[in-house]
């Protein structure tokens, strides 16, 4: 390992920006806030690029010990940073996409009163995310993990005046708590059994243990607990419910945190802990099953959503499911590859959606859009590229990574592949549905007036939205850059170059066997590739037919499906299920036992009883407090006499 003294600067720079803007922002000018908010992450990005330029797949990891933190007995956890190939990919994605979204935010949030606050939160998020990525031990990673949760909470509830935003923030935070609880238990188990949280030391100890082929041992437990944490952060079944609600936040936040970076932290964490998972095949299976189910489940919900951001949110959940599917198939590099491309096109989708929302004055319901192609061409074309990319049509980025995952999944178990390919079809369908509903046909928005839309969205422009209009170039610039990346980003995976780059991290035995299989059946691979391309075009065609040619058909189909359609529209009643299964018993139990029983019956009764008794005693003694000074003096004199008598008695005795 090599020491790199510049490593600590990457996370600390955004922190500096957040601090400066957070403290001084209220009185600074917009220009100053913008400069600070952009320059610090910008420098961090350049620094990351500079480090990356000297880093190849053969390089030894960098590390930097910044400061001592916890040293208790043999246990040791320091503020140390660590950079290997895996971290580098994440680092580039986070700083690069993050920086682009910062630029985008300057345009998107320009009119908001909380501009400085927003920029400060974004920078704060960057700090925690980079800490998470660059951490050298699980504890520092946990700091970043919790920190991004905090930033996410702050940004979801950014328009905290709105009740739904505030409660969405709380929902995200509380749901994440469940996941964090699992993560913490995993950390405790590690401390208990390995005595350390340092990645290299933990993995070194894990490597010496036998693979737990049957039953639930220590490593399986740790792996499952880590997966609980990852499911919370990365919105997997059963903890995905917070992510769609998190769309209450400003759109750049949805793009940065809830699509491109933070939600992928779970994937990163699982990939980082691959050694543990490789020694616990049971946990790995759980990861794969959860990922597959989530991918399919979320995709089906996505079909019926009408809110443009909700569609994208369920799409995100679904894509994250793909990544877990890959991890579960022990194809960690495929998962990370998809993570990266997904960051490009999903970030782009959200930013384009933001641009659309911006252009139509805060409207998010796709039924009230349509025909926007001629009003905002740049947005349309970039979004079209992203849609094609996510649908998995070559040669766009999504095709390469998704195909890689599907191929690896097929090698693990063909059921994964089957569900995955169906999901790919659904994905293609609902993404093109979104595209057609938004950009084609006639504009179905409200008549031009000054009073619509703005209040709901929270930002208010100086002029009314007479008709949809294109966004400013400060917003379109990042769109174009991301569109370019969505087109060409997939080629880094051409001929498994990406996988080889990550080999130093993931070169454990399992992936080697996967390599053999992959090389052994190239014809099968090409067949599967053809199927997935066909499925993608099939989805496109169906969307074209239903939402462009025969607009009357979807309603008829929905009516004929009846209950099933209702269930999909209502997201399979999962929120209601949770409410009745978990929240209601909890509330009822708390009410009956804790509130009525313990609090009122025991604590309040004690306190009230004490108070009542005190009142009785006081009622007797209060007559001493007549307010007459002379009677007070009388009591004092009597008391003095008593004291003197006591002292004399003690003296005599």
């Amino acid at each position, binding site marked *: 390992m090599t020491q790199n003294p510049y490593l600590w600067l990457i996370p600390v720079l955004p922190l500096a920006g957040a601090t400066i803007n957070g403290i001084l922002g209220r009185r600074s000018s917009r220009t100053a806030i913008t400069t600070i908010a952009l320059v610090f992450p910008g420098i961090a990005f350049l620094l990351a690029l500079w480090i990356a330029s000297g880093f190849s797949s053969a390089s030894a990891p960098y590390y930097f010990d910044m400061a001592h933190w916890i040293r208790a007995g043999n246990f040791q956890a320091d503020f140390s940073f660590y950079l290997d190939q895996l971290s580098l990919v994440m680092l580039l994605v986070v700083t690069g996409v993050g920086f682009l979204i910062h630029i985008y935010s300057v345009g998107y949030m320009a009119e908001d009163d909380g501009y400085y606050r927003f920029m400060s939160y974004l920078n704060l998020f960057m700090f925690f995310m980079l800490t998470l990525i660059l951490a050298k031990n699980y504890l520092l990673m946990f700091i970043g993990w919790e920190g991004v949760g905090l930033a996410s909470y702050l940004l979801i509830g950014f328009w905290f005046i709105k009740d739904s935003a505030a409660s969405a923030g709380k929902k995200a935070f509380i749901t994440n708590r469940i996941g964090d609880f699992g993560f913490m238990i995993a950390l405790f188990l590690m401390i208990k059994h390995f005595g350390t949280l340092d990645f290299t030391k933990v993995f070194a100890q894990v490597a010496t243990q036998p693979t737990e082929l049957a039953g639930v041992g220590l490593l399986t437990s740790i792996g499952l607990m880590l997966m609980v944490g990852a499911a919370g952060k990365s919105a997997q079944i059963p903890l995905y419910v917070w992510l769609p609600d998190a769309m209450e936040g400003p759109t750049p936040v949805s793009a940065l945190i809830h699509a491109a970076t933070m939600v992928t932290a779970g994937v990163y964490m699982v990939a980082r802990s691959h050694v543990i998972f490789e020694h616990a095949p049971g946990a790995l299976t759980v990861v794969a099953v959860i990922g597959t189910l989530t991918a399919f489940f979320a995709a089906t919900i996505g079909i019926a959503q009408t809110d443009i951001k909700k569609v994208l949110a369920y799409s995100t959940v679904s894509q994250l499911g793909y990544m877990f599917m890959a991890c579960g198939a022990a194809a960690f590099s495929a998962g990370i590859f998809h993570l990266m491309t997904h960051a490009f096109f999903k970030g782009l989708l959200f930013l384009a959606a933001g641009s659309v929302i911006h252009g139509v004055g805060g409207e998010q319901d796709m039924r009230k859009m349509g025909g926007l192609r001629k009003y905002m061409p740049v947005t349309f074309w970039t979004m079209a590229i992203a849609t094609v990319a996510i649908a998995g049509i070559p040669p766009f980025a999504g095709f390469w990574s998704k195909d890689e995952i599907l191929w690896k999944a097929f090698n693990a178990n063909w059921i994964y592949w089957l569900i995955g390919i169906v999901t790919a079809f659904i994905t293609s369908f609902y993404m093109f549905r979104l595209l057609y509903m938004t950009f084609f046909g006639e504009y179905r928005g409200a008549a031009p007036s000054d009073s619509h839309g703005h209040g709901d969205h929270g930002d208010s422009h100086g002029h009314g939205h007479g008709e949809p209009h294109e966004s400013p170039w400060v917003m379109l610039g990042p769109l174009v850059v991301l569109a370019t990346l969505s087109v060409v980003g997939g080629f880094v995976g051409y001929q498994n170059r990406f996988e080889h780059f990550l080999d130093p991290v993931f070169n454990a035995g399992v992936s080697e066997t996967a390599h053999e299989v992959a090389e052994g059946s190239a014809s099968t691979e090409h067949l599967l590739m053809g199927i997935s391309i066909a499925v993608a075009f099939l989805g496109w065609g169906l969307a074209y037919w239903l939402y462009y040619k025969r607009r009357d058909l979807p309603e008829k189909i929905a009516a004929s499906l009846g209950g099933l359609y209702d269930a999909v529209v209502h997201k399979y009643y999962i929120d209601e299920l949770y409410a009745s299964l978990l929240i209601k018993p909890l509330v009822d139990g708390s009410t009956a036992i804790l509130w009525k029983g313990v609090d009122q019956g025991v604590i309040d009764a004690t306190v009230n009883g004490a108070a009542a008794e005190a009142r009785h005693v006081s009622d007797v003694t209060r007559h001493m407090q*007549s*307010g*007459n*000074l*002379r009677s007070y*003096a*009388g009591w004092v*004199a009597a008391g003095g006499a008593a004291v003197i008598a006591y002292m004399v008695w003690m003296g005599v005795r």
Partner: protein
Amino acid sequence: MIPLYYYLILSGILFVCGVLGFLIKRNIITIFMSIELMLNGVNLSFVAFAAHWHALSGQIFVFFVMVVAAAEAAVGLAIIIAVYRTRETLNVDQVNLLKL
């Protein structure tokens, strides 16, 4: 040469007179004067003990007591004036709300 306890008895008599004054007097000002009388009684025992132990600190204590008494008199009399202004009486038995 006279015994120390002569002074202490005198001091005690003054103090008890002060306490009794506090107990039986109705006029706030007189009660306040009783307090001063108690302070003086204590001061006498301070000085007597200072002479007995040949320690000047006792006299310094008396000095401080006097200073505090002066401050107390200033504030106390101001309070009495304020009370009189609102209650228009100096009888403590009629000032039993203990506020202005």
